[in-house]
């Protein structure tokens, strides 16, 4: 998706300065049109990036961000040495990786399965049903988790029938990550599969015909035709996902978090919210936020570089 655009960006503009100026003059109204949005981005996206310097300062409300005194790396060091550091890093990366390992392949498998359905109506029904949870809000989904996974909820009733004793899913740390990951799969697998289905629809039918003539079974054709056909889509999405490995879906973690599962549910983003917004320790939590963004950014660059080297597919 981003690939093409970046390709275009690589080509230098060859127009001589005079023609370029004429072009600008002729399309002055387009510049006028885009100007408000550029200003909007400068204010709401780039100004906060500039404001990140608060992480290196001691924020004093009366002085504002600019007037507050510099303190260098103090807040970062305090964070690295704090009691929470290891727990936060462990939980954040643990949850992301768990989510990636389970949540990434399932939509691919689902798309391959849906693609094998021959009856149009059945296919439509399956798609309609599996996409539906995507339209529920995070609050509603977490609310449903509390209802269905409570000690006397549906899931524990079913477990009871199977002779398994009650599990306190929402209040025990050991179940937090599993509950998070699998409810996410439940909500998003159908929706995430759309992209792969689109890619599968784009595969040349002649490849399948040729494989059939060579006597390939359906399973073999999935393996040797379908999977290679959606390979570049898979890689691009994998890069995008790993790029946000340190910033797991904050909203849902935040909603599922409570005093009892804190040990497993406290991630960097919720910690920033607690110390920063709720606790008003602006500088300290901005430092943690910057640390998070920086790691994300480097992981993205690293994964993109690796993908480029090994598979010639990359974001840029």
């Amino acid at each position, binding site marked *: 998706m*981003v690939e*093409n655009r970046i390709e*275009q*960006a690589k080509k230098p503009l060859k127009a001589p300065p005079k023609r370029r100026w004429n*072009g600008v003059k002729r*399309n002055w*109204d*387009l510049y006028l*049109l*885009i100007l408000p*949005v*550029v200003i*909007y*981005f400068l204010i*709401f*996206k780039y100004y*906060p*990036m*500039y404001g990140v310097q608060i992480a290196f300062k001691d924020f004093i409300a009366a002085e*504002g*961000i600019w007037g507050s005194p510099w303190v260098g790396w103090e807040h970062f060091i305090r964070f690295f040495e704090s009691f929470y550091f290891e727990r936060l890093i462990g939980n954040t990366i643990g949850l992301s990786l768990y989510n990636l390992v389970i949540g990434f392949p399932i939509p691919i498998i*689902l798309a391959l*399965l*849906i693609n*094998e*359905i021959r009856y149009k109506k059945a296919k439509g029904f*399956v798609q309609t*049903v*599996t*996409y*539906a949870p995507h*339209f*529920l*809000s995070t*609050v*509603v989904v*977490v*609310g*449903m988790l509390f*209802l*269905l996974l409570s000690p006397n909820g549906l899931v524990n009733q079913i477990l009871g029938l199977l002779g398994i004793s009650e599990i306190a899913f929402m209040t025990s740390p050991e179940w937090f990550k599993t509950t998070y990951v699998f409810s996410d799969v439940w909500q998003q*697998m159908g929706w995430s599969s*759309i*992209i792969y289905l689109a*890619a599968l629809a784009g595969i040349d039918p002649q490849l399948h015909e040729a494989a059939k003539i060579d006597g390939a*079974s*359906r399973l073999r054709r999935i393996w040797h035709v379908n999977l290679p056909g959606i390979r570049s889509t898979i890689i691009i999405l994998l890069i995008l996902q790993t*790029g946000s490995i340190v910033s797991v879906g*904050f*909203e849902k973690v935040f*909603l599922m978090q409570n005093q009892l599962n804190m040990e497993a549910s406290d991630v960097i983003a919720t910690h*920033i*919210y607690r110390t920063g*917004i709720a606790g008003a320790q*602006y500088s300290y*939590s901005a430092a943690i*936020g910057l640390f998070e*963004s920086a790691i*994300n*950014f480097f992981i993205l660059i690293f994964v993109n570089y690796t993908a480029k080297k090994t598979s010639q597919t990359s974001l840029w």
Partner: protein
Amino acid sequence: MKQSTGDRFFGIAVYMCVALITLIVLYPLVYVLSASFSDPAAILRGELWLFPIDPTIESYKSVFQNEDVWIGFRNTFLYTTLGTAFNLLLSIMVAYPLSRKDFYGRNVLTIFLVFTMFFSGGMVPTYLLVRDLGMLNTIWAVIVPGAVSVYNVVIIRTFFQNIPNELRESAELDGCSNIQYLIKILLPLSKPVIAVMVLFYGVGQWNAFFDALIYLTDRNLFPLQLFLREMLIQDQLSEMVQVSDSTLDNHALTVEGLKYAVVVVASLPMLVLYPFLQRFFVKGVMIGSIKG
């Protein structure tokens, strides 16, 4: 060509897997719907499996007697309509120039936008900005900070680019300005992508709660999702239900039933709309993924 035994067996396995997945996704939804119409006592006793037990609409009555629900609906409706209109306007204003091959600086501007997808100032500097702009506890705090999704801009731009350039050239010969071309020719031709965007942004706004959580403290401005959070997750329902029941047990039961009903009430508008709009959504995801 006749299917081999292996292929036929494989086909059956596929259908069984798909049926199982569909069931897993569908069952919790049906269960919640049934539970909302059931006698709460029966749910707690574990008698409910598929169809409502002792069908009743008592839970729904209590939901609509709740003042917070009405305030929430009113605000969410306001934020969704205003927010979506604002999102759409800004997105088109930026997507149109970027779709033009003769627009100098489009590459630089594209990178300027895309960079914000991967790097941001973070929660705290953004919060301080919104605070300094005096937007705390105003409807602007919910609508303005997340107004443009770069991802959606890319979708719109791609769609614009696929409309033949000859059309613009001939319009230009007839003396049509850039803005006139956008309003009179391009936008009417872009109804499908605009529909997709209204839906994407609309669903996003309907379900949003995070900006409201950070920036709003005035309960009169809370969107529905924040009230839902209190009712479903923070368990503050007990205090909100008008206590007309004499016994505490009865009270707890009312609360339990209310939760199911409130889930249904909050999600129904989206879930009812969605099957009709599904093809638009799917198209949007596809435009966004294949090209770009």
